[in-house]
């Protein structure tokens, strides 16, 4: 019954999405009418039904109902509860259902709370949201039904891909999805505003919290994903330029640009067409990313649930939605493009440059990701990796970092560079100091640039606080300062990791030691251990930093039996100045064990920096929402006073 209830709710939700689309479209064409009143309630009920449907799926996984195909394929009664929960979205069908659930819940929320936009624009926005949701419902109902029953219930389930059986990864996809799908709201806003030609600062202010929210989730998701890849895959790297990673980076880049241009639109009523364009592009990048990962059109180390037939379905959706939105953009953008003028040297000017550079970086990543596809169409097979992304990306990242140092110091509308010369000099000194430091320590070219710019940007990020009462500074400004500082911190971590990491591959007997950097590591024992659904060989290592006290490490080589797969559990020791990373290999020759050790100075800054960026976004979001509520309160009070006066 549970599965049937879930499926029925999904069909009903799809019907309501259709109603939302038709009613919204007619309301926009014909102005106010009976149908117009249906749009908001339809969106709210659609959201509730879809959430209900998703909860039914989760319940099936919790009960391990093996008469449902998806559960039998992806779960196992032996599995810990938390991974049963994660199993509900750790597969193609479940993750698509989660996607549409988050999207319809977001639609319900806008319908419920958003009152700033003109009603017609709101209806057009909800119609667009219903239209996008409808395609995904069709995808689920016709091609990937998560509630499909098996003719004969399975005796035991298949289990969850062991690589996914990790608490960090269990919550990684939902985090990214909240980001991707949050961008669908920005997309619908952009389409709605284009349809009614209402691209105003009010529109930017209404859209901004959604973009910020999505961007925070994307930032956290990417940061967490990078850390997961780092400790779980056992290769000691934190970014591989894998298509799956790029699929999350591209919407992030577009959303970052969108966030900044929406600020210009909100504050200065400029960059109208550009903001709309980024709103469309950001969500398009989420969808293109999903398509690339799910269709099997590109191969990736961690793509799962790959199926070209479904790929065609997603491609058709892409063509309709993105193609449709870009066509509307082409037709309408000309009539909304006009905005306020500003001089090149101004906050707006810096934000425009930053936007162009972010878009260029997005182009570099997109091209690198799609290049194998393009050349394959011409019969040549190539793989694109760090040798392309690192230097080509740096060409645009370096000037962007320089603009980040100066931009926040400039005033809106127009400014003179002479006014900030002294401030800029402080940042410049930081760059020089970093450069000197990196050269003294003998780092390579890119790490040297990274260290120099990281130190410069860290100093420059704090300069907007200078001479201001920090207690009365708006939260949004704090958010900007912390997010920019986070970029500097992450950059320092990346540069330090690539410049100063040391690696040691040794074959040692139990009782013998190996050293890497300042660390002395002794292999004390290798013991078999067992978990709920795996067995492992666990190394006991004693590590000492510079002859100091001993820390115990327990790296494992795990074997899962359902499905059979081996994973590496690296062991880490984190100090303030870096991480020791240890991996246990296999027996080298009866007595010796292969041990791989890395000393990575300041590597943790990469992820702390990422979290700081997200924290900055969160502060800005809280600040913006509070500001909006206060403005609404003041307007209501003013309205009441006018009413009193009139009486």
């Amino acid at each position, binding site marked *: 019954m549970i599965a049937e209830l879930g499926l029925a709710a999904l069909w009903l939700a799809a019907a309501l999405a259709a109603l939302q689309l038709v009613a919204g479209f007619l309301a926009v064409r014909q102005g106010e009418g009976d149908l117009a009143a249906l749009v908001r309630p339809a969106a709210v009920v659609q959201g509730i039904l879809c959430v209900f449907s998703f909860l039914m799926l989760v319940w099936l996984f919790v009960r391990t109902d093996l008469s449902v195909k998806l559960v039998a394929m992806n779960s196992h009664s032996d599995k810990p509860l938390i991974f049963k929960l994660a199993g509900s979205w750790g597969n193609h069908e479940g993750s698509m259902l989660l996607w549409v659930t988050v999207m319809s819940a977001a639609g319900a929320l806008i319908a419920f709370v958003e009152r700033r936009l003109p009603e017609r624009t709101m209806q057009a926005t909800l119609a667009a949201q219903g239209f996008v949701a409808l395609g995904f419902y069709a995808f689920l109902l016709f091609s990937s039904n998560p509630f499909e029953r098996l003719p004969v219930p399975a005796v035991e389930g298949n289990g969850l891909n062991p690589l996914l059986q990790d608490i960090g990864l269990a919550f990684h996809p939902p985090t990214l999805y909240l980001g991707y799908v949050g961008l669908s709201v920005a997309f619908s806003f952009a389409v709605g505003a284009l349809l009614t030609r209402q691209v105003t600062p009010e529109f930017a202010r209404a859209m901004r919290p959604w973009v910020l929210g999505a961007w925070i989730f994307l930032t956290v998701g990417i940061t967490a994903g990078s850390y997961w890849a780092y400790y779980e895959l*056992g290769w000691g790297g934190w970014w591989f330029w894998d298509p799956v990673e790029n699929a999350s980076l591209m919407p992030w880049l577009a959303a970052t640009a969108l966030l900044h241009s929406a600020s210009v639109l909100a504050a200065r009523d400029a960059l109208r*067409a550009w903001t709309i*364009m980024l709103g*469309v*592009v950001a969500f*398009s990048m989420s969808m*293109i990313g999903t*398509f690339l990962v799910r*269709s*099997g*059109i590109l*191969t*990736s*180390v961690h793509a799962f649930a790959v199926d*070209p037939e479904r*790929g*065609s379905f997603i*491609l058709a959706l*892409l*063509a309709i939605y*993105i*193609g449709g939105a*870009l*066509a509307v*953009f*082409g*037709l309408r*953008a*000309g009539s909304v493009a006009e905005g306020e003028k500003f001089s090149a040297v101004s906050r707006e000017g810096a934000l425009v440059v930053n936007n162009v550079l972010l878009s260029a970086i997005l182009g570099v990543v997109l091209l690198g990701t*799609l290049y*194998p*596809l*393009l050349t*394959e*169409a011409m019969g040549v*097979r*190539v*793989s694109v990796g760090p040798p392309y992304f690192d230097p080509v990306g740096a060409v645009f990242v370096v000037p962007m970092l320089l603009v980040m140092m100066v931009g926040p110091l400039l005033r809106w509308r127009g400014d003179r560079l002479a006014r900030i010369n002294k401030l800029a000099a402080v940042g410049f000194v930081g760059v020089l100091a970093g450069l000197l430091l990196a050269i003294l320590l003998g780092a390579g070219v890119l790490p040297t640039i990274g260290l120099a710019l990281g130190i410069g940007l860290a100093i420059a990020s704090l300069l907007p606080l200078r001479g201001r009462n920090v207690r009365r500074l708006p939260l949004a400004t704090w958010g900007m300062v912390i997010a920019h500082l986070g970029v500097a911190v992450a950059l320092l971590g990346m540069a330090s990791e690539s410049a100063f990491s040391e690696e040691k591959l040794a074959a040692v007997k139990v009782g013998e030691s190996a050293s890497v950097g300042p660390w002395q590591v002794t292999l004390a024992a290798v013991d078999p251990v067992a978990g709920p659904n795996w067995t492992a060989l666990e190394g006991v290592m004693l590590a000492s930093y510079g002859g100091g006290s001993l820390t115990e490490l327990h790296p494992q*080589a795990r*074997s899962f039996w359902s*499905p*059979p*797969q*081996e994973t590496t559990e690296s062991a880490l020791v984190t100090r303030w100045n870096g991480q020791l990373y240890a*991996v246990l*290999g*296999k*027996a*080298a*020759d009866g007595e010796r064990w*292969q041990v*791989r050790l890395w000393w990575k100075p300041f590597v943790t800054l990469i992820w702390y920096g990422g979290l700081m960026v997200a924290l900055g976004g969160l502060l800005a979001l809280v600040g913006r929402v509070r500001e909006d509520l206060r403005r609404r309160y003041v307007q209501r009070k003013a309205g009441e006073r006018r009413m009193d006066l009139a009486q």
Partner: protein
Amino acid sequence: MKGWRFFLPLALFAAFVGVAGYQLTQPKAEFVESAMIGKPMPAFEMRAASPDRPGLSLADLKDGRPKLLNVWASWCVPCAAEAPQLATLQAQGAPIVGVAIRDRPEDVAAFLARYGNPFERIGADDMSELQLSIGSSGVPETFVVDGQGVIRYQHIGDIRAEHVPLLLGKLREAGA
């Protein structure tokens, strides 16, 4: 006309849909191949994964005879499923060498005792280093390597009965 630039994004996107759509209609085997096809194998040297077969190095692949290089592991169920096909291939004269991924010697020996041993040599790839460097992302996979150590073909997944003639054909194309 001034507004044409607003249609540029649409044009770029249409090009993407065109290429992606074309690629999707291609047979699957066409586009899951390794980017390493046509490239020489990287230099490597692996200890023996089991006591009764020698280890594997680049020099062994450059002995002039084209070979099948089978990437497998004792813990992999599809590898057990493809064992009869490997035996058939060997019986039809295909030289086969193996790379055991993250495996234990005793498990390798047990697997070979149970499912047969079609391998001339088996190298142990304890950290999946060779596997990753030749563009393989799972087990089992089978590569056709010519006598000069250049990768000619990649087969992803288990070898089924219908793939046997195909692999023999690729081996012949590689000069066997």
